């Protein structure tokens, strides 16, 4: 059955959009712009928060390994989902969160395991939307290496260029 993701185009959920891009070859999924972000699974089941949307999409495309390949990786993915939704969305100083991320990435190419997972998608999305300007390469070398490595790849580059400008625009209008 076809899934439908509607996104709030004035405040685009980058993590959900990135996950949608990753699974679109494996899952019958349409994405459209609208007023509120929501994944329509069936008339009885809808998910409207980003972590539920990304978890569901990762679970219906298990072959992609976006939720990790064993229960320890799944648990690390859960850890980073909460980290991205809570610590990276704080309005204030992100230095302790960025420091923790930098440390975690010191010996890793991806946040969890040896391939891209929801952890990379959601942490990258949160940084793109919020903390990118605070992440200075001389303070967080590993974080910046990881961030630019992902940013250069499709679909990060396409989602970034298409939607990130809208995020900054919506932030400016909120401040006004």
């Amino acid at each position, binding site marked *: 059955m076809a899934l439908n993701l509607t996104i709030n185009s004035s405040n685009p959920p980058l993590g959900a959009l990135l996950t949608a891009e990753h699974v679109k070859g494996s899952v019958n999924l349409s994405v459209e712009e609208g007023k509120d972000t929501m994944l329509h*699974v069936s008339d009885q*089941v809808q*998910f409207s*928060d980003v*972590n*539920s949307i990304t*978890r*569901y999409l990762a*679970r*219906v495309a298990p072959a992609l390994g976006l939720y990790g390949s*064993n*229960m*320890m990786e*799944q*648990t*690390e993915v*859960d*850890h980073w989902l*909460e*980290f991205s939704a*809570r610590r990276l969305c704080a309005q204030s100083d992100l230095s302790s969160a960025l420091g923790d991320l930098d440390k*975690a990435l010191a010996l890793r190419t991806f946040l969890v395991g040896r391939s891209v997972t929801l952890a990379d998608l959601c942490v990258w999305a949160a940084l793109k939307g919020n903390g990118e300007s605070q992440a200075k390469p001389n303070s967080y070398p590993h974080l910046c290496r990881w961030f630019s490595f992902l940013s250069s790849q499709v679909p990060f580059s396409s989602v970034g260029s298409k939607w990130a400008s809208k995020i900054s625009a919506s932030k400016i209008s909120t401040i006004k």
Partner: protein
Amino acid sequence: ESVFRGTADLDSLLGKDLGALRDIVINANPAHPPLSLLVLHGLLCQRYQVLSSVHVHSSVSTVPPPLLSCLGPRHIESYARQRFQLGFTLIWKDVSKLQMKFNTQSMCPIEGEANVARFLFRLLGAEPQDPVAATQMDFWIDMAVFQLAEGGNKERAAVLRSLNSALGRSPWLLGQEFSLADIVCACCVLRAGQTASAPANVQRWLKACQNLGHFDCVYPLLQ
């Protein structure tokens, strides 16, 4: 008897046993006892040989006695570590966020009671296989931990209304099966002290949770 009938096997879940005790180390703040993890500890003890211990870190001066005995009596055979399948080490420590360390060579430290609860539940082999049910379970857990445990009165009231309406349709939050969603949400309602003022379906469900017996370890900690 356990309510979960999964066929969990630690070697298949965690990789081959390399001889050392697989020790789950949890740093928790005594000001916020992780009630859901204590319930899960009890369930793990029904399934595995668990070597449980409680310690107090030097960052904490005094800990109320119920917190010292919250994992049950101390094992007298704790010297025979190889006889146990899992270690469960709870350290009362002045941490801002609950933290679990397990298999630290491959796994990052896991923050947050909800995420540690998910890990312990996976060890029981009871996670729903259906993507919708699994995601609904995670949704309820996040809602309980973020909005009930940390939210204001308005957010709490909204969560209680959602719980009440879901529990009007089925006995447990995911339907006919008791799950981690029930464990975490019930612990958050109990902790928030909302039991007496909770709506009718929530009250009935709390009673049903209590009747299962898995929550017995929680009540002494509620004062």
